[in-house]
């Protein structure tokens, strides 16, 4: 099926991509590699165990922890960007949340690094009633794309990997939903968000641009932490200057009840918004 149009689907290799590869290759270090001895392997295992226990002991709630432990690419390859994000980090104090009986959402930290046109928002979501509810990122449901539903199984008879059962990704692994939950008798809710928008004057305008990303995980306290990193095309400073140096932003989020019936699960989904202010210089 090779054809010219598919061949050109992604265009020619961009120069920026080539430059990045060339730079990576130049920076590779040539060191003689020592053969691992049993002693070396044991020392490595002990060190990993120690580091692992330290990592688990840290409650992962903040942006500093996130960029130092979970997403370390900036620290390693773009230290100036890491420094910029860290230096502009601010706690978020002013925020309004729509009434939500099931989930409490709060924006905890933000960082606007104008030198990199990068806005980072860290928010945490937790069940209002943690005795009865367990909350997970919606993205972790069927993250492998293999769920097709019982009614569609016959369409994929040749594919051994398709499933009629939902699987969930948690710190226990990836498997059937109830088996992967911390407490399977609880109600499962799925949390999702990926947008940051301007509130007020340009209400609803999505802050957009390339290099935007969303990361979502469950921390030690059982909170669903979402880090939204947006490479912003708009000149946030100009918007903020009109409002006395602060910017009102909003983050819409959705909550879905996990149910055995997919249609009911879809119908259960609701959307709320948290609105907050940050200082922009």
């Amino acid at each position, binding site marked *: 099926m090779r054809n010219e149009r598919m061949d050109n689907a992604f265009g020619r290799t961009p120069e920026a*991509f080539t430059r990045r590869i060339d730079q990576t290759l130049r920076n590779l270090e040539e060191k003689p590699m020592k053969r691992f001895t049993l002693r070396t392997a044991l020392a490595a295992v002990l060190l990993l165990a120690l580091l692992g226990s330290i990592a688990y002991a840290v409650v992962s709630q903040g942006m500093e922890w996130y960029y130092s432990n979970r997403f370390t690419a900036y620290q390693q390859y773009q230290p100036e960007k890491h420094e910029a994000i860290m230096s502009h980090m601010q706690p978020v104090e002013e925020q309004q949340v729509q009434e939500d009986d099931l989930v409490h959402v709060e924006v905890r930290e933000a960082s606007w690094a104008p030198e990199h046109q990068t806005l980072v928002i860290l928010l945490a979501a937790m069940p209002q009633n943690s005795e009865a509810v367990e909350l997970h990122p919606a993205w972790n449901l069927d993250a492998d794309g293999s769920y097709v539903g019982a009614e569609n199984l016959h369409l994929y008879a040749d594919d051994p990997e398709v499933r009629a059962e939902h699987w969930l990704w948690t710190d226990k692994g990836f498997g059937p939903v109830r088996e992967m939950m911390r407490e399977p008798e609880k109600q499962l809710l799925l949390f999702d968000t990926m947008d940051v928008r301007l509130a007020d004057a340009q209400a609803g305008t999505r802050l957009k641009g390339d290099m935007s990303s969303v990361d979502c995980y469950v921390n030690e306290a059982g909170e669903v932490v979402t880090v939204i990193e947006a490479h912003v095309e708009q000149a946030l400073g100009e918007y903020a200057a009109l409002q006395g140096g602060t910017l009102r932003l909003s983050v819409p989020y959705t909550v879905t009840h996990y149910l055995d019936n997919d249609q009911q699960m879809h119908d259960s989904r609701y959307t709320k918004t948290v609105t907050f202010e940050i200082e922009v210089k």
Partner: protein
Amino acid sequence: MMEAGEIRPMEKQTFTELVKQNERKLYRVAMSYTGNVTDAADAVQEALVRAWSRRHTLRDEQLFSTWLMSILINECKTMLRKRRRMLPFAQLPETQLQLPPDADREWADALLHLPEKYRLPLVLYALEGYSVAEVAQITHLPVNTVKTRISRARKQMRQEVMDNAE
């Protein structure tokens, strides 16, 4: 002279030459996962660093391409899992795709709308010219599964392109 306990892995010059020979493949496979140039470059950078550190595991330079592609695919999957970029592509807001100006957007959209399990074998086989056996090796799938997925991908691509044309 080698010291006792040292392994002589692939030299940097050889590694660099082989990577450059595979640069176009690396770009397109990474794009087929990420949909934008910046993320593709991130994934390839991580893959190259990882491949360099594990070059001693490559016994035969003839297998460099399939070996490197395996590493890249793992990096793409890890990156997508850790730094969620987007929902399944069918729900992806158009603004988050970033294609070069000379890209054929209609075909890129059609490719990116395929589920990953079908898209990857098709890209490796039809775009990058790997054999079915090589695709099976890269993706760690049985040969028959690879054949089925390529066939299914072709069918869906034809449908996508026809739908877009209407």
